[in-house]
């Protein structure tokens, strides 16, 4: 019996020792001063091999194409010896999953986030995120307007821009337009005429992904820059930011709901709007069964996967949401941002990775894989024709950043509100709900003017 006790005791001690050893060397990610670059080091300096390689975790929503990131990480691994593990989380729950991980202390090393300083509020940036404003080797190559966009009112930047200037508007199948003998519209009434003509020819004019919820929002967001911004101006947006203007008091916004209802009543959407999905939208637009879709440029890599690069280059066209009198304003979205939690396990190596990602070589790898309007001064990117269209609008001063990126409070549950609107067709209820949810979100975020 005594012998057995001794055996158990020895086993217990061994187990304890093993587990302590495991804790000590867990993931091999402990930073040593030798293994990390200094904060002010440049991307080139960061490419030095680390003395003790670490594995960094990089979080990205699965709605993003991971290909360019993997290519960049491959280079990073070759140069530094550090590995990057990509974790693609479900896009719809990305924010919630991220917040959950933050609240449980399960921080990634680097993560991709949607643009806008509203994300700083959402993530309580001053407590949780590394602050980049004064960081050397980060801002020199970023276009000035994008640098400004990145800073909050106190001039602090908790994210580093990465990616391309995005766009939302109307994507159309050029072949379908050609067959019907129509061209990009000159104003909104003309757009409806074109849609009617297409319907007459047996083509579904517009596709609406109501089941997925988010695609339905694009109509209102693109319509905002062409229509609502003209009514309320930048001052109006500032008033919305501090809750001095009600969404339900904006006539041009209400008119967007009326316009959407009109399209539905005229039968210009596909048959089953309520079961419409983003995936089916791509198929129908690509196959020419549908002529147009109010969409964001995230559709391009998807179409390229399904129908090839030539198809996207030659057969897909783009135009902004037209106004009553002209072709409208192009809605652009700033690039995503890279963020590093201040409590990241491998903070220094994570900063190194971010700097490597925004180095000239890396951004060019990105643009090669995902051509788009660059946000870095010395980057080169081959643009799709529709991206050139938007660039032309930008150059002519006829572009505006998505209002969602200019506001701190969000249009909470807009997809759901629009789903309901598609069922009921009740404009007043929808806009009232949109307004109530916006105020609720501002209040929930404890924003000035909302409490």
């Amino acid at each position, binding site marked *: 019996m005594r012998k057995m006790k001794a055996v158990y005791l020895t086993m217990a001690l061994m187990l304890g020792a093993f587990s302590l050893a495991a804790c000590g060397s867990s993931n091999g990610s402990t930073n040593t001063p030798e293994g990390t670059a200094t904060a002010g080091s440049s991307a080139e300096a960061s490419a030095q091999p680390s003395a003790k390689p670490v594995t960094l975790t990089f979080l990205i929503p699965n709605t993003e194409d991971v290909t360019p990131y993997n290519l960049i990480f491959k280079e990073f691994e070759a140069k530094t010896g550090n590995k990057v593990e990509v974790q693609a989380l479900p896009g719809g729950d990305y924010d*919630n999953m991220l*917040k959950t991980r933050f*609240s449980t202390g399960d921080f990634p090393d680097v993560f991709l986030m949607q643009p806008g300083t509203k994300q700083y*509020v*959402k993530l*309580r940036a001053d407590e949780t995120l590394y602050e980049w404003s004064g960081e050397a080797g980060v801002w020199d190559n970023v276009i000035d307007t994008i640098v400004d966009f990145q800073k909050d009112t106190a001039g602090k930047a908790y994210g580093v821009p990465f990616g391309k200037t995005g766009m939302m508007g109307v994507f159309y199948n050029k072949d379908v337009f050609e067959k019907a003998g129509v061209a990009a519209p000159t104003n909104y009434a003309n757009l409806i005429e074109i849609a009617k003509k297409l319907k007459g020819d047996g083509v579904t004019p517009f596709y609406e992904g*109501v*089941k997925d*919820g988010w695609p339905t929002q694009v109509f209102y967001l693109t319509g905002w820059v062409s229509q609502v911004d003209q009514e309320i101006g930048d001052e109006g947006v500032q008033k919305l930011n501090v809750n001095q203007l009600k969404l339900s008091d904006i006539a041009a916004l209400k008119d967007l709901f009326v316009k959407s209802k009109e399209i539905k009543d005229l039968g210009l959407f596909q048959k*089953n709007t*309520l*079961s419409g999905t983003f995936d089916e939208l791509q198929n129908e637009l690509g196959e020419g069964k549908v002529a147009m879709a109010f969409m964001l440029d995230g559709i391009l890599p998807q179409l390229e996967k399904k129908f090839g690069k030539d198809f996207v280059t030659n057969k897909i066209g783009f135009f902004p949401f037209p106004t009553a009198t002209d072709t409208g304003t192009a809605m652009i979205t700033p690039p995503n941002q890279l963020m590093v939690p201040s409590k990241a396990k491998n903070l220094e190596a994570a900063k190194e990775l971010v700097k490597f990602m925004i180095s000239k070589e890396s951004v060019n790898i990105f643009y090669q894989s995902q051509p788009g309007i660059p946000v870095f001064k010395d980057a080169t990117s081959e643009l799709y024709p529709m991206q050139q269209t938007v660039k032309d609008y930008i150059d002519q001063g006829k572009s505006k950043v998505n209002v969602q990126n200019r506001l701190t409070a969000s249009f*909470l*549950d807009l997809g*759901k509100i629009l*789903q*309901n609107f*598609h*069922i*009921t067709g009740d404009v007043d209820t929808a806009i009232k709900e949109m307004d109530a949810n916006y105020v*609720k*979100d501002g209040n*929930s*975020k*404890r924003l000035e003017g909302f409490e």
Partner: protein
Amino acid sequence: MERSKYPLYFSFPAVIVFLLFFITPTIIGIYYSFTDWNINADAIKFIGLENYKELFNEPRLKQAFINTLIFAAAVTLLQNAVGLALALLLNEKLKLRNLLRMIFFMPYVIAPLVIGYIFRAIYHPEHGIVNQFFGLLGMDFMVQDWLNDPRFALFTVIMTDIWRVAGFSMVVYLAGLQFIPKDLTESASIDGANYWTRFKHVVFPLLAPAFTVNVLLAMIGSMKVFEIVMVLTEGGPGYTTEVFYTYIRNTFSSGEMGYATAINMLLFVLVTLVGIPVLLAMKKREVEM
């Protein structure tokens, strides 16, 4: 016969676990439902009944309340009807009795999330087997967009859940049927009672405890429905299948913890208010053998 008694302290571990993991969080939850707990706020303030006032003015919660009650009533009723019918059938001497029992019980052990994903494919408007089946039969009027049409969405979710849980009710009723002494039904047969009369006057009254368990569990479970709705419809289209927990999830997601806890408390009160009278009524009709 004297019943053997165990010392009271034998129950202490269970009581401690229950107090620690069930009662304490509930009390804490009650407290937080009276606060403005929010992930964006630095401090948590006591705000009295504010959350409750707000939630009574929320039309979306009203819709969730109605849907939850419809869902609970339909599932409780049909789950028990189908479960009882299956139990009676599989209590007979059938060749494949055990295999059939297993087949009908199997959905219950599959995670609701998995069932949700499978049924999403089954109900797909074009490629789903439900519509293809009706199409093959030439019943085109039955070809519907089951999950995305506001007229059918809630009904479809209800039917899916009944398919999932009817096997559980069947097992409970089967257990109840095993406890009914054979001589009672046999003597009724000798007295000339047909199947229906035997069921009505002998089997049904003696199955009362199984009914109590089944009805209560079905009712409480269906009022707390979440996963199956979430996967199949996410509470949509619009708010047509919104239930308490999909709404609670939504408010938790937006960081309104205090408000979400208040909705949880409301659901707790609702389940209690519905559950206790049902329990008392059903207990009353139980027959001691």
